[in-house]
């Protein structure tokens, strides 16, 4: 393979991985606080349609990202109110949020079907971002750099700050955290809001980073794959990065396989399109084989907390 091809592969796979990485980072923080929000896909769809609408009307992709984050966060607050304040079933409420997001994006995306959108330009000068070799470092959308910064930021927050310690305490033992005076429900509200904003940005990545037009259900299950990645990464941000890029490699494999020719050329494209989902299943199995005993899951994951007055 030529250098050009390798560079092209790296650039496509990083692009394809970015929304999953951003959504998974958000969900990781949510789950670390002890909450399982299965509505990632729904929040992404909300972020995608609102982000598209904002970027399309203002012509400013940054506003698209901001609006997407806000939409994802507002959607996550529905979930937070139901599960945290009314202590409803987290699995069912997450599913409801996904169904809601699908309806929301279908309704408000309808007028934008087929409308083109301007992609983010690289933040670096063309000498670097268009350079045949250096573009592998400088040639990305700002969203890609954002995702990388967030990997470090989330790791730093969880492992090196007091607030992160409190958040982990709430996720590992809500009753102890409550009894030493930490606001369990308040911390979880903030975590869910962060997860929602990240999912919203991840959704906005689809029109702003990948395909610059409105397509219904454009996230096509990537939110669910992000959920699986959090399990695979054993709730560690660094491993999330590796997992997301592995996934991006698989998701874009069809392109290189077709270029490689030979036996790959005859395989149906539907098989390639199924690979990410099949790979996710394989990854989950591998993870469970490796994880004898502790999986790294927060002890209170998915359990409602109702303070005894």
């Amino acid at each position, binding site marked *: 393979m030529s250098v050009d091809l390798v560079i092209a592969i790296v650039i496509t796979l990083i692009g394809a991985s970015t929304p999953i990485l951003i959504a998974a980072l958000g969900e990781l923080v949510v789950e670390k606080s002890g909450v399982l929000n299965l509505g990632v896909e729904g929040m992404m769809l909300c972020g995608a349609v609102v982000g598209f609408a904002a970027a399309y009307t203002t012509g400013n992709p940054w506003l698209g990202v901001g609006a997407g984050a806000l939409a994802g966060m507002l959607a996550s607050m529905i979930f937070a109110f*139901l599960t945290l304040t*009314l202590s409803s079933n987290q699995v069912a409420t997450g599913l*409801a949020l996904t169904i809601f997001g699908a309806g929301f994006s279908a*309704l408000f995306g309808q007028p934008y079907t087929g409308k083109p959108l301007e992609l983010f330009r690289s933040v670096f000068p063309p000498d670097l971002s268009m350079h045949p070799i250096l573009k592998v470092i400088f040639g990305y959308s700002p969203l890609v750099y954002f995702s990388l910064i967030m990997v470090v930021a989330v790791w730093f927050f969880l492992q090196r700050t007091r607030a992160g310690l409190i958040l982990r305490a709430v996720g590992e033992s809500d009753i102890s955290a409550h009894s030493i005076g930490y606001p369990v429900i308040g911390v979880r509200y903030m975590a869910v809001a962060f997860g929602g904003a990240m999912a919203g940005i991840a959704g906005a990545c689809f029109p702003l980073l990948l395909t610059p037009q409105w397509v219904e259900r454009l996230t096509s299950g990537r939110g669910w794959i992000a959920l699986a990645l959090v399990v695979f990464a054993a709730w560690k941000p660094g491993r999330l990065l590796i997992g997301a890029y592995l996934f991006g490699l698989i998701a874009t494999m069809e392109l290189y396989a077709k270029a490689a020719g030979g036996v790959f050329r005859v395989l149906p494209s*539907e098989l390639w399109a199924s690979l990410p989902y099949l790979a996710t299943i394989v990854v989950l199995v591998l993870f469970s*084989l490796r994880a004898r005993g502790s999986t790294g899951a927060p002890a209170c994951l998915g359990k409602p907390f109702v303070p005894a007055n």
Partner: protein
Amino acid sequence: MRLRLEKRPSPSQFMLFATPLMAVALTMVIGGFVFTLIGFDGFGAVREIFFTPLMNPLKWQDLAVKATPLVIIAVGLSIGYRANVWNIGAEGQYVLGGLSATGIVLLTQDMSGPWILPLMAVAGIAGGMAWVAVPAWLRTRYKVNEILTTLMLTYVSVNLLNYLVFGPWKSPRAFGQPQTIAFSADQSLPYIIPGTIVQLGAPIAVIIALVAWFVMSRSLFGYQVRTVGAAPYAARHGGFSANQTIWVSLLVGGGLAGLAGMLEAAGPFGRMVPQFPTGYGFTAIIVAFLGRLNPIGILIAGIVLAITFVGGEVAQTTIAFPYPAVGIFQSMMLFFLLAGDVLVRYRVRIGNRASAGDSTSEASA
């Protein structure tokens, strides 16, 4: 002043039945307001979506057609949900059921006889079961979460469907259209009410709901499922196998979704096309919850959701209300239902801790 939750000694039976009705009523009121606020004819939409299909007898046959797959799938899902087994990929099992039935159709192209339709049904059930057997095996053998695996396989099933109808199963007479040959009369469901579009699937759905109700409330299996879901440790002590419960509840759910797929393929569709996955498998999740995971409740909830589908089409033609908004009304019902759940398990007290009326409960808590 603030809201406080006070656990009830046992779940309120009254609230269990009242909250689904409240959820539907709240959806109409708040949905109407919200859609009015954002510039639609919100209350006109509520009228067309929730009432017109009921008031107009001509629409009743459409309700039966739409409710059939929803009820069959939701009954199957409810058994798993009771046991805390979360199959959310019924859509994929539905697609496999339809594809398996289509496979029989292609094999029996030049044949006739009343045996073909039952064979298609068996194939449909087997297809749905086979598709869910993978998550069931992974869950019981490797403890892999079935929520993610069932959903991932749904995306794979849609790819499989596309591969078949764009490729090997494409009808030679379809002029490049991605579709299979049309099913013959012996490969299609009979109409049961002359002059309507109601086919054999509708009474099958009712029978399935009744049988499931009987099994779940009157048999040891039903008791086992409920115990494993509500009290896993007690179930283990009582000798109920969790793995067996997972297997059976997933296979029943997958099999019924597969049957629903077969009934759709051999019924309203009449041939396999890429538009076959219509989202019934996901809407059935709402039906299962709105019906309180009770087969009789699901029968009613299936009709309610069918009303919104048919009403959505009505609202689109009469007042140009966008059809995708139906999905928002449907998910609102589920949100309000889940919010209402709090009333089943808790009493909601308003006021400060120190307020007089609460002193007795405080003391006992």
